[in-house]
């Protein structure tokens, strides 16, 4: 199983669109990738589809917090993980970095 990691915003990069075509298992939003987790994200339909298909979608809480986004604008169905959770995911899955 793969862990797809998105680190850039859906507003300016196609990473999440590319990953959503092939993602199964798990998808983690980090760095500017967490901007895709907000309600008004251009990627919200893609993310909703992935969640509906059973893909586990996570956002890194430290990166949400740094951007003032923690818990307030989040799309439903996205789970948050902290750095320890990030490490646990990387140990559990093989990583596909979308850069």
């Amino acid at each position, binding site marked *: 199983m793969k862990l797809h990691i998105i680190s850039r915003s859906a507003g300016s990069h196609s990473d999440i669109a590319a990953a959503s075509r*092939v993602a*199964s298992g798990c998808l983690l939003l980090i760095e500017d990738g967490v901007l895709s987790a907000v309600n008004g994200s251009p990627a919200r339909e893609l993310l909703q589809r992935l969640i509906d298909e059973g893909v586990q979608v996570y956002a890194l809480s430290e990166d949400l917090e740094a951007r003032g986004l923690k818990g307030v604008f989040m799309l439903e169905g996205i789970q948050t993980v902290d750095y320890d959770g990030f490490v646990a995911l990387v140990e559990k899955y*093989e990583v*596909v*970095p979308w850069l």
Partner: protein
Amino acid sequence: MAELPVRLPEEGTPAERPVLLLFRRPPYGTVFPAEGLRMAEALLAFQMPLKVVFLEDGIFNLVKGQGNKTLGFGDLGSAFAGLTSFGLQELLVVQEDLSDRRVRLEDLVQGPIRAIRTTELRALIDEAKVVMPF
């Protein structure tokens, strides 16, 4: 003979899961595709199992007739096709991304290029031991 820094697969052992290089960016605008090419050459030189896929704007890496003397750019497309002389069996390109950009297979460099669907790309990613984007 000095020990090689990379372990080579022993004869008779089951096939290792391949390294998968994903070329997502177009040529020349960034150094990514050229660096990916170098990595592909290195992996092939050490006989590592390798697959390469061109997707999104990365499909433009395979368009034939590249290169510009004024800008000092070589022909990256021919260089990718030349990977077959290092042992790469085929260059894979995502059909949907060709179609979206109205690029046809006959617009691409000569060589063993095979168009695949996104579903096959998903299977390649799931199968690969390591996935690296360029």
